[in-house]
């Protein structure tokens, strides 16, 4: 504490004491690893859960535990990733505001902290840390796929304002979010990376129409937004005009680094969106197949992948934090997590046997394994595809030659595009 910073151990004790005194321990079935298939909730359930999380976040803030990696002047604790990790260890098994972590604290909050003006930061970061503002990312577009920088959403200057038009997709929480971070094209006459600008804007306004997307498992968590003549004051611009890719690069870095972020609380051991080995053990039991050596081989494989993934995440996280390896190495963690999650969903489905084809509610954990299997590629698509991760690893980590990109040195308006978006 010589430099006035709370040391990790005393922070840990303080966090533990407060958590035990104030947060509800989770019931055993609540700790069960979540699965690939997004939870199918009614809108009322979703809103009620979110209200409770805002309430908890406010308590966390009042307790001096919110925004561990955010500076004190914006309401945070001014502490380090090590402190965040200590907190993550202590909240295991307790209720916590899971929905607020990403994308609100990071990447949105992290991007604001890094690129926002003093005024923007003072206005938004404390509100975020108190649970008052929930944020969403307006990043991907229907036309774009992995090529985020090929955004077609346009922002045209009109005096002190910008007028935005276009469409964003794969957003989560559009119906519950307050603010959005939006990447838009402000210049079509330069190569794609040099004509982008980032804005912030309130979500609930007449120019923004939100449409839910039905996923094949019935989940409607993802949305598509249509922006029509949305006016944004220039004071809500983040970073320089046409400098949006500088912001965007860090934005996506924060997204990849979620599990090693000083801004985000994720219980240790949690791999959201994955079929955990523990739940696969339940599948094997409920399918009556735990004693089959072949099934045990698969269970061993599933848990092996989980353990390897956890240790890999720690290695890469520490290596990046210590500056021993490049930040781009986060793609290694992403690739491994995506592929192994898909494999685990396959293992669970295989073990379920004929309950993978048809099941009743009596089948316990073996019921509905097929949903996770049908949705399994989401772990290799969402948050940047595994293909993009492999590009990053080969080109940025290993220094192999870059792919030919015919769009690199060409005005964006002249870049060849998909048939459907050429019109």
């Amino acid at each position, binding site marked *: 504490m010589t430099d006035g910073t709370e040391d990790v151990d005393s922070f840990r004790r303080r966090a533990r004491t407060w958590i035990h005194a104030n947060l509800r321990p989770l019931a055993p079935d609540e700790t069960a690893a979540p699965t690939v298939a997004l939870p199918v909730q009614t809108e009322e359930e979703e809103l009620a859960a979110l209200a409770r999380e805002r309430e908890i976040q406010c308590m966390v803030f009042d307790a001096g535990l919110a925004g561990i990696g955010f500076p004190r002047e914006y309401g945070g604790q001014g502490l380090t990733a090590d402190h965040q990790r200590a907190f993550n260890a202590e909240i295991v098994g307790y209720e916590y505001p899971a929905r607020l972590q990403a994308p609100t604290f990071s990447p949105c909050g992290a991007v604001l902290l890094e690129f926002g003006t003093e005024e923007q930061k003072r206005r938004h970061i404390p509100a975020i840390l108190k649970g008052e503002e929930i944020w969403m990312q307006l990043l*991907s577009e229907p036309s*774009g*796929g*992995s*090529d985020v920088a*090929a955004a077609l959403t346009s922002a045209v200057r009109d005096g002190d304002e910008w007028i935005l038009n276009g469409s964003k*997709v*794969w957003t989560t929480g559009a119906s519950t979010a307050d603010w959005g971070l939006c990447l838009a094209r402000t210049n079509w006459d330069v190569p794609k990376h040099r004509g982008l600008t980032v804005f912030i804007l309130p979500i609930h306004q007449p120019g923004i129409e939100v449409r839910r*997307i*039905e*996923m*094949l498992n*019935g989940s409607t968590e*993802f949305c598509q937004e249509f922006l029509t003549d949305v006016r944004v004051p220039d004071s809500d611009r983040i970073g320089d005009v046409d400098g949006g890719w500088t912001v965007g690069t860090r934005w996506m870095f924060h997204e990849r680094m979620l599990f090693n972020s000083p801004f985000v609380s994720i219980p240790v051991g949690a791999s959201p969106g994955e079929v955990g080995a523990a739940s696969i053990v339940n599948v094997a039991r409920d399918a*009556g*197949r735990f*004693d089959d050596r*072949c*099934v045990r081989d698969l269970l061993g494989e599933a848990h092996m992948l989980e353990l390897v993934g956890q240790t890999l995440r720690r290695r890469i996280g520490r290596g990046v934090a210590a500056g021993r390896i490049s930040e781009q190495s986060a793609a290694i963690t992403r690739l491994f997590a995506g592929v192994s999650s*898909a494999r685990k969903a*396959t293992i669970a*489905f*295989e073990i*379920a*046997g*004929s*309950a*993978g*084809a*048809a*099941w*009743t*509610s009596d089948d316990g954990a073996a*019921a*509905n394994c*097929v*949903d996770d299997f*049908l*949705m*399994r*590629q*989401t772990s*290799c*698509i969402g948050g940047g*595809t*595994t*293909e993009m991760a*492999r590009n990053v690893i080969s080109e940025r980590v290993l220094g192999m030659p870059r*792919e*030919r*990109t*015919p*769009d*690199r040195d*060409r005005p964006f308006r002249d870049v*060849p*595009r*998909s*048939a*459907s978006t050429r019109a």
Partner: protein
Amino acid sequence: MLLELSADQEIFRDTTARFLTSRVPINEVRSLRNHPAGFDPDYWREGADLGWTSLLVSEEHGGGSVSGAGLVDLTTIAHEFGVHAAPGPLVPTNVVAGTLSAVGGDTHRPVLASLLAGTSVAAWCFGPALSTDGQGPAGPRCRIAGGEVVLDGTQRPVEAAGQADHILVTAWGEAGLTQVLVPTDAAGLSREPMRTADLTRRFSAVTFDGVRVPVEAIVGEPGDADDLLERQLQLAVVIGNAEAVGALQTAFDMTLQWAFDRYSFGRPLASYQELKHRFADQKTWLEACHAVNDAAAAAVDEGSPDAKELVSAAKAFIGDYGSELVQDCVQIHGGIGVTFEHDLHLYLRRVTVNRALYGTPADHRQRISTVLENQKERA
């Protein structure tokens, strides 16, 4: 499907293809998820007129094949079912019709006639056929008492049990495995609907609680069902495989087209070598799926000694490699590939459910190893 069909087979296949295109376009398939039966009775009757249920039935009983190889002919229909993600109980109805024609008695003729006409469908309780599935000889038991067969027990999942007028069930009795054709309105028979990932197929858990039927309901002789069941399993697997291969073909074709149309970083996806090589793998697996199932179908039709191993090799290969193929199609589509609005998941569902039905790939690998063991002992 075979690269070369005879002219007659080609006309036969094409007739069904055109019927499915007009009668159950893909949006119709999508909306059938809310239909209680998953298919319309008129649709099925019209399909039966096109020969969907007659290929495994002898001419004497009103059936007949196109080429003399009924199962091979049937795989062309099943292939089109897969291509169109079409609804209808193709597997159980054909398995039951083929069985009734081969070994059914006079009392079974009217049922067979209604299956041929498409005025009713049948269900087939697949169960004890795979002794390798770790579940052991579960399933119904039967005893013969006073000219009646009495059935007790549960079997699941049973496709189309909720839509069928008759169920062909295999039960353990004193004489051994015995097959019985049971009307679904028999007292003591209940059907609990199950959930499934397929939008148009319906499954039930069927419970027999002291169900009594006359001994004439027995198909074949009491205790004779082992061979029947093995043959039925082979038929069901080959038909299901052909359907899966049709679904894979469509998924592959639509994904390849997508790769040509979709641009990323100023280039079509099809120009990226890593994707090109994945398509090469997909194409290889797809051709292998066609090849092994066509060989299995021919072997079953010919009563070849390698039929069992070919059928199981086809099931194991198409189950595992087919799943990976169609999941890779999803991956190449990106997020849109897992939306309900997109067509891809209809094929994904078909392939996935077929993989888990009638033995998983692992179950069939065990079957193959048993064949190997027996060959080794013979040698």
